[in-house]
């Protein structure tokens, strides 16, 4: 009897402990459908060579691959994607890529099983990305030649060799680097392809309902393995309250948030919600139009800069949401970005000194301060709020900056007509070469340059030099662009930024973090630190929903 009860006790104990270990393993939910909601009214374009909005880039990131990719989650360096390996020729002008075998395109009418990707598709896709009438990113591919050597090998030849950093960004899984299906476009036409993307990624396009959602289904043939998620639904929800409430009820599992710490606090308190904030997000920089009074005087510009307290602006926008920056281009960890220490060492860190600001203004001939009107966009977290913070700060030094708020599209067109003497601009560019060229090369000067772009300060142009000394970094930019050694390239880029800051053409202010609240039972499948490709948490074959 005692033996029996002992055995029963032992077996109960055994079952109990088995159950315990089983629950320690991860249990997946029955329904593996992830719904992600973005701040957008609708999809603008499902063509990867045209897509420019956050929601479209995030959607297409799940559908397409590139030759190489930025490692998911931290995005530093590159790793193989559709290409298994690559080699640079001895003369440094030709890269040859060996393609992975057994990569299948998603099914489409006429090809219910899809078909294997070969070099033909890669060359077709890259040529399409290089043509101005089919691609918004055609400028990136100037001077490149594409050739299919054999079905699994392609060669890309550069007219003039560029560094690996710059080259790889053109063939990575982003914008023009996304590889599209040649057969799909040729058999169904470009118009069809605009609304039916066909790629090689972990998820394939299933349906699109205007203003509502795009549904993606899992691609069981994905070369990295069948995705755990069965379906991903991308919803277009432009109203933040709706997104919030949808997250609360569980209708939405991941939502695009608002970059405001009060809002983040509120949402973190919802049941089963965790908030993911990650970088690098757009850098926000203030540009002075150096060709106009009073900003043609470097002392006035310096005065403005000294009146700014970056930490205060960051705190106003939300600690944990905004971070001060000191680089005249992208912020660290972008290769070549200037750090605070470097800026300080070079003596170009101007901030937090109201007395000095007043003194400089007086020296420049404005003892009673200055007054002007600046135009800014209605977008709260990237334009209006920081401008309000800056307005209050510089007022203390006697600088009366009136702020006129206009809608976003008008803002973008007005600043390109020199309508505002200072321009606060939030943006991101894939590397320092692009940033420096578009914002500081004299050719890019707004209205007056050879090919006007976003050089709002007119840096390097004759009209910006007249009021005082001011440099020109055109030669430096071009030298850096063709520098093949990455360390030397970074050094040149830093030199360029220091030159710009010495002339106080701009005041780098802050950069923000993206905020994406999601349900605690959503497991991304990788640690998320940076996501600049999509401005959102990327979803891949390992993302899954835990039991809840």
């Amino acid at each position: 009897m005692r033996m029996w009860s002992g055995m029963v006790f032992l077996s109960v104990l055994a079952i109990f402990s088995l159950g315990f270990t089983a629950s320690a393993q991860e249990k997946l939910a029955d329904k593996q459908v992830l719904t992600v909601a973005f701040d957008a009214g609708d999809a603008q374009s499902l063509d990867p060579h045209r897509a420019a909005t956050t929601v479209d880039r995030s959607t297409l990131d799940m559908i397409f691959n590139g030759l190489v990719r930025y490692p998911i989650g931290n995005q530093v360096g590159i790793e193989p994607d559709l290409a298994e390996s690559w080699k640079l020729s001895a003369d440094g002008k030709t890269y040859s890529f060996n393609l992975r075998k057994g990569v299948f395109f998603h099914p489409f009418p006429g090809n219910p099983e899809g078909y294997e990707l070969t070099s033909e598709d890669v060359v077709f896709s890259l040529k399409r990305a290089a043509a101005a009438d089919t691609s918004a990113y055609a400028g990136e591919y100037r001077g490149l030649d594409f050739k299919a050597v054999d079905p699994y090998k392609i060669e890309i030849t550069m007219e003039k060799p560029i560094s690996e950093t710059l080259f790889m960004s053109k063939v990575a899984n982003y914008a023009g680097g996304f590889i599209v299906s040649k057969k799909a476009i040729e058999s169904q036409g470009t118009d069809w392809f605009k609304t039916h993307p066909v790629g090689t990624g972990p998820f394939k396009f299933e349906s699109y309902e205007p203003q509502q959602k795009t549904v993606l289904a899992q691609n069981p043939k994905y070369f990295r393995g069948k995705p755990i998620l069965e379906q991903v639904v991308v919803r277009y929800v432009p109203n933040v309250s709706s997104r919030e409430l949808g997250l609360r009820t569980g209708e939405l599992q991941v939502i695009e948030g608002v970059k405001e710490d009060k809002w983040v606090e509120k949402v973190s308190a919802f049941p089963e919600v965790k908030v993911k904030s990650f970088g690098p997000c757009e850098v926000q920089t203030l540009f002075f139009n150096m060709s106009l009074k009073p900003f043609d005087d470097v002392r006035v510009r310096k005065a403005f800069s000294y009146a700014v307290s970056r930490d205060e602006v960051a705190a106003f926008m939300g600690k944990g949401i905004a971070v001060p920056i000191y680089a005249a281009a992208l912020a660290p960890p972008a290769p070549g970005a200037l750090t605070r220490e470097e800026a300080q060492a070079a003596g170009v860190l101007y901030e937090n000194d109201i007395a000095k600001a007043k003194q400089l203004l007086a020296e420049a001939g404005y003892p009673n301060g200055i007054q002007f009107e600046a135009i800014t966009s209605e977008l709260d977290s990237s334009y209006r709020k920081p401008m309000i913070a800056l307005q209050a700060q510089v007022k203390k030094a006697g600088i009366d900056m009136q702020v006129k708020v206009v809608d976003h599209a008008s803002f973008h067109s007005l600043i390109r007509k020199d309508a505002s003497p200072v321009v606060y601009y939030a943006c991101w560019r894939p590397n320092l070469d692009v940033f420096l060229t578009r914002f500081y090369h004299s050719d890019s000067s707004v209205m007056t340059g050879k090919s006007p772009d976003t050089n709002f300060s007119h840096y390097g142009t004759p009209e910006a030099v007249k009021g005082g000394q001011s440099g020109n970094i055109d030669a430096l930019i071009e030298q850096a662009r063709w520098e093949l050694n990455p360390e030397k390239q970074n050094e040149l880029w830093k030199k360029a930024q220091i030159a710009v800051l010495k002339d106080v053409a701009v005041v780098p202010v802050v950069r923000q973090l993206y905020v994406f609240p999601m349900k605690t039972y959503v497991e991304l499948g990788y640690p998320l630190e940076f996501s600049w490709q999509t401005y959102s948490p990327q979803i891949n074959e390992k993302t899954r929903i835990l039991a809840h």
Partner: protein
Amino acid sequence: MFSYVIRRILQSIPILFVVITLVFVIVRVLPGDPAVAALGDYASKEAVEALREKMGLHAPLWLQYLHFLGNICQGDLGASAITGYPVGAQVLKVLPHTLELTFFGIFLGYFLGIPPGILSAIKRNTFIDYFCRIFSLLGLSVPAFYLGILLILLLSVQFPLFPVVGAGDFSNPADNFRHLFLPGLTLGLLMTAYITRMTRSSILNIIREDYVRTAYAKGLLDRVVLFKHVLRNAMIPIVALGGLYAVVLIGSSVMVEIVFSRPGLGKLMVGAIKQRDYVTFQSVMVIYAIMVVLLNLLIDLIYSMIDPRIKYR
């Protein structure tokens, strides 16, 4: 009657023409480049120029205008300047959602608005009357989006009865109705406030009439007098003015569509303005103008049906 309808339709063509021209001019006067809006500020300059060429933005203004008029007359609403999707197809896809929302809102407006109005009128200056009047004043003052969010908090979050976002499938009527209820209720409550007040004042006017006094004098039951004589006559202005308010409701439906993330004409239009999508915006405005004209015509016809004193020739 038929000739009357035709005449009214023909009379509305000049109105539509003025609306279209105004819209065309206003959109082009606004600063903002649709090509930049379409491609994002990261795109290369060549791409932006290529798109402007494709959109026909380099052509002189009068040529663009004639192009536009010509297309409208052929029933071609053009292709979106941003996405390239044909506008006609987009409108057809979202129009049913807007129509069902608007009509459900109007229906709820009458259904929920008339009984309190009657009650308020017959129990004039009592507590019920005051309560209904204050309630309807609140309804008139609350903006659509605020009311929508309140309803979501109550009926989706607090008591999970209805979904928060989306529109549901037409193929699944039950699911569709669940998605329609809250947005429809939001619009309906806005209209209820108006209808309640209208009903009350209309009935009070009628009750003072001689023939009503005669009916009471004849010894008819209160209930009979009310429903057979008073209400029928009171309905006329309620229907007419309510119908006019329905036009206002179309405007409020834009806010409701945004709060509930419902696809609809309003959301399409707001998106088009933000992106300077001239083509979509113009075409949607034309649709709206036609809707308003037809709605007014419908109201007038209903009016003539319920009031035998009115004849159209």
